[in-house]
């Protein structure tokens, strides 16, 4: 570069001419620009550092949040396991599904031997009634009849084995009403399931259960076949009155 004042050669970074001492406007402008660039650089650097710091802080918080959420999930699972009933129906149903062949054979055996009460208890204990639509579908119709037969026999047992002690609470009226209700349920189910059932063997079991109920009425309520027919046609209240009459006559 050439000095404007003395025409002496000067370097581009010389702020003043080494010969005459005049200012070098180019170098001065350059130095000013450099100062501005430096300041801008420092400001940007500061912002960048601040942003990085903030991001790190968010990351830490997010990590803590994730740990808390995982902890919550783990604690919920542990609590649920602690509150769970170890002998829940789920386990029983799972067992019934697993042993479908064995349990089906056992039910067939109960039916073949006419052990309908045992069969009903078996169905309840193994939650088989909840699997009618699936694994135990073939028992779907007869199970309903067995259940109602079971309730009828239980109702009759309640009446027959009642306590005759004077100072013991008597639930005879309720027992008679319940029995009459169960009997109506049985005959309604029996009629419907006979229409739906196609297996001849199961149909014969249904008839057998109906015969047993009639025989039990004959034996315990001293009715003949004709009386049973007219008894079954009565209203529920009428049935209850009839049984009360029978029991009064016994005493």
């Amino acid at each position, binding site marked *: 570069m050439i000095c404007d004042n003395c025409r002496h050669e000067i370097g581009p970074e010389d702020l003043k001419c080494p010969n005459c001492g005049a200012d070098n406007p180019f170098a001065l402008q350059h130095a000013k620009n450099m100062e501005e660039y430096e300041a801008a650089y420092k400001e940007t650097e500061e912002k960048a550092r601040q*942003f990085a710091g*903030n*991001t790190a*802080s*968010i990351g830490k*918080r*997010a990590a*803590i*949040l994730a740990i*808390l*959420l995982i*902890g*919550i999930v783990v*604690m*919920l699972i*542990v*609590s*649920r396991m*602690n*509150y769970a009933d170890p002998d829940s129906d789920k386990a029983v149903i799972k067992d019934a599904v697993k042993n479908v062949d064995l349990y089906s054979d056992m039910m067939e055996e109960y039916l073949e*031997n*006419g052990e309908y*009460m045992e069969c009903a*208890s*078996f169905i*309840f*204990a193994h939650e088989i009634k909840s699997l009618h639509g699936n694994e135990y579908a073939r028992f779907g119709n007869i199970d309903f009849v067995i259940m109602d037969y079971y309730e009828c*026999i*239980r109702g*009759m*047992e*309640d*009446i*027959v*084995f*009642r*306590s*005759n*002690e004077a*100072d*013991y609470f008597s639930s005879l009226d309720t*027992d008679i009403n319940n029995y009459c209700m169960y009997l109506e349920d049985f005959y309604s189910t029996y009629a419907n399931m006979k229409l739906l059932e196609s297996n001849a063997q199961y149909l014969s079991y249904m008839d057998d259960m109906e*015969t*047993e109920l009639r*025989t*039990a009425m*004959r*034996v*315990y309520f001293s009715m003949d076949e004709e009386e049973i027919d007219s008894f079954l046609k009565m209203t529920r209240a009428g049935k209850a009155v009839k049984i009360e009459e029978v029991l009064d006559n016994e005493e």
Partner: protein
Amino acid sequence: MRNKYTVLIINSLLVIAGIAFLICLIDMIYSFRYRFRETSDPSEEHADVFEYQLEYKAYNEILDSYHVLRMQDLDPKPGFENIYRAGAYADAAFMVPVYEAEHSDVRSEKNEQKLAVIRNELGDHIQIADDIDKIVGR
């Protein structure tokens, strides 16, 4: 500005998660207390009720207990043997006159065998079998 909102949201979530964490922790502690709680022996309670029912010859109530218990377990749990024996005897005895009236010899014979076995198992409670036989006219 954007960071400020993000931090605010995360802080709020942290507070909520912290509260939820504490609640779950307390619930988990209680769940362990529930799991290892001391429970009364149901067989003792049933034994008392059974003796009371026997005293009044309320065999219908014993049968009810038997049927309800069998809905859960076909075989008796320890302490429930007497209820199961008495219930099974009454249940089988109930069918004796029914099978006789139907002339079902096979069922009748099988039922009698069952009754004989239970009668032998009744031990001190043999009176139950006698009472029940009397009721069904056996």
